[in-house]
């Protein structure tokens, strides 16, 4: 059989069998969860089914069911991708000609498609309308009206003007329409020149953080995609070695094992390269910076609503921590001097009280 035809047949079989497998699971899951309407095409069937079938088992069991089904799902995708690449290079490999050119063409196309998809899904937003819509997913409803006004104000002027306190629309936000949104009335009474500018600067910094997240995330995804391309290439190399030795792969699971092991070896190199680490660190830091800046903006809103903020709670935690430390040092000093606590050894306090909730040194 022609190699291409053979791979094509294997892929068809795999797809058919996969369909039967899914139908088998589906039947079992439907039975377990009475999900008669669910089909593999309905997005949440897997999670619903997992939840249903795991209802009576242990927590560890439920998590395992989830991972088992997810791993099969991941295998299906990985197999599909790998076999596509293999189908492209198989004729050259079989003919003993250079397969890397074919692979490079495939890899470039895939890389380009991946990059385009990523760019579409995480477009570099400078437009406030899209940005506010995006932010709205994560933010509590309290801040959305503010962002809505920001969006409106930006339509009539420069974005920077809108957020820096210079536009009429922002003035409406902070004063004239306070009745519509009573929680904003406090904002309207604030001294404009100082606090308003400060708050808006926080919002600007947050927007910068969002752009940073998207930029660094895109870079990370592209680096991952490049790593995966290298992993596929290494696996095809490994298959070429098998061919030269006359060895063969006869099952999908063996093929998967070869793919996983070779891919892990390649990705270990990728993940440890200085370039990848720098990209990963930048993405992690961008995500963390976003959380910090998001908190700063939200805390302004919470303060207006008289809700305790994370910073205030952290201050309380710090005070308690410092007091406990101080108490421990005091007890230690008293103990060392042989004063009151030394006559009633604190070492014994834990035992004499059953050891619960007592600390010798605080």
């Amino acid at each position, binding site marked *: 059989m022609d190699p291409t035809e053979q791979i094509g047949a294997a892929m068809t079989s795999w797809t058919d069998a996969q369909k*039967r497998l899914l139908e088998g699971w589906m039947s079992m899951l439907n039975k377990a969860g009475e999900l008669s309407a669910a089909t593999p095409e309905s997005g949440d069937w897997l999670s619903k089914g997992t939840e249903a079938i795991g209802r009576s088992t*242990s927590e560890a069991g439920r998590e395992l069911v989830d991972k088992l089904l997810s791993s099969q799902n991941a295998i299906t995708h990985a197999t599909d991708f790998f076999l596509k690449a293999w189908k492209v290079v198989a004729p050259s490999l079989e003919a003993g000609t250079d397969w890397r050119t074919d692979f490079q063409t495939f890899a470039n196309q895939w890389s380009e498609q991946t990059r385009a998809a990523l760019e579409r899904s995480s477009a570099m937003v400078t437009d406030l309308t899209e940005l506010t819509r995006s932010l709205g997913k994560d933010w509590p409803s309290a801040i959305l009206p503010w962002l809505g006004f920001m969006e409106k104000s930006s339509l009539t002027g420069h974005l920077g003007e809108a957020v820096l306190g210079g536009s009429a629309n922002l003035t409406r936000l902070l004063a004239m329409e306070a009745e519509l949104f009573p929680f904003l009335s406090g904002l309207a009474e604030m001294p404009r020149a100082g606090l308003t500018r400060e708050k808006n600067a926080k919002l600007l910094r947050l927007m910068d953080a969002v752009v940073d997240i998207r930029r660094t995330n895109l870079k990370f995804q592209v680096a991952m995609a490049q790593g995966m391309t290298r992993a596929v290439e290494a696996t095809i190399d490994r298959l070429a070695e098998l061919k030269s030795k006359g060895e063969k792969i006869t099952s999908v699971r063996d093929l998967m094992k070869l*793919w996983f092991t070779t891919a892990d070896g390649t990705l270990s190199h990728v993940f440890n390269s200085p370039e990848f680490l720098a990209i990963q660190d930048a993405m992690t830091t961008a995500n963390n910076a976003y959380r910090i800046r998001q908190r700063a903006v939200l805390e302004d809103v919470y303060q207006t609503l008289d809700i305790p903020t994370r910073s205030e709670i952290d201050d309380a935690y710090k005070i308690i921590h410092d007091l406990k430390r101080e108490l421990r040092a005091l007890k230690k000093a008293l103990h060392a001097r042989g004063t009151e606590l030394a006559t009633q050894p604190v070492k014994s306090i834990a035992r004499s009280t059953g050891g619960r909730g007592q600390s010798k040194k605080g």
Partner: protein
Amino acid sequence: MSFPIQIQPSDVAHEINEINRKLTQGIENLNRLKDADVDIGSTPKDVLYEVDRLKLYHYKPLAEPNKIMKTPLLIVMPLINGYEVADLQPDRSLVRNLLHEGVDVHLLNWGYPKPADKYLTVDDYIEGYLDDCVDVVLDHHGVEKLTMFGICQGGTLSTTYCCLHPDKIANLVLTVSPIDFHAYQWTKEQPHVGLMFNLASGADIDTMVEAVGNIPADQLNISFLMAAPFNLAIGKYTDLIDSLDDKNALLNFLRMEKWLFGGPAAAGEAYRQFVKEFMHGNKLVKGELVLGGRKVDMKNLTMPILSIYAERDHLVPPACTIGMKKYLDNKDYTELCIKTGHIGIYTGGASQKILAPAVGKWLRERGA
């Protein structure tokens, strides 16, 4: 035919039907399991002391009373792992094996930090909690010294403590514990070895701690999975399909999973301090570490030391464990290599017959 992939359509159908059958049966087995079946850390014990999140356990003896050693032993866990790795299940339990050796075992379970614990420092853990526990154990047994047994990062903390309080320590046992963090340089030839150190090398810890407070266990787990993402995140679950119908094998797997993914978060300040001062700065071996206003001097490690490392340890390269010896002025320093991995040293089948017996023998030779 020389074509390397010889997967026939009929074989694929058969293979996938077989997977389907095993998976269906396995899931039915899973459905019969209850939480109580997946028990870890089950060796009988008393809580000797409890404060904040911390619990100090004292295990019930398993040896004849006349064979129990007089010097109590305190196991110090890492801050980022659950204590159950030392007592995963009856036939894979360091704690149980030590008890059979006649060791009087205590274990410090640091517990699960909550947001209010984010300001805890390494100083608090060592000079506060650990020192408290040492005093409680000494007082409980009416002795002057104990044996300290460190597990991974717990060994780093133990070593630091022993530098500050050598008068309370009879023996120090370290297992796969990083001491000299710069003893191993990452190489392209072995990219998975020391991967965690490499991943942390350029991380902006200050921003991370400010953003999240305590470092979530999931974030730490991802670092472990990065060593072999396909095999650890997908492959091992695929392989499990073959043993889903074996209840014992399934329970073994589930117990390990429960421990792996049930670990505690790391208290933010302690994590920041550990990464910056121990990992990045390597201050412990450089003699630059200061805790509670006191310099941590490794020359104070005059007690007998047993350092045990795993030959195939990719998380803590052996060089980082045994690298400590060049900073010591100690004639009673012993090394032991076990042919296993970082976790396998506690939970692996072969290690059950090596680790605890070796520790027991070494302790008896030193009059414990």
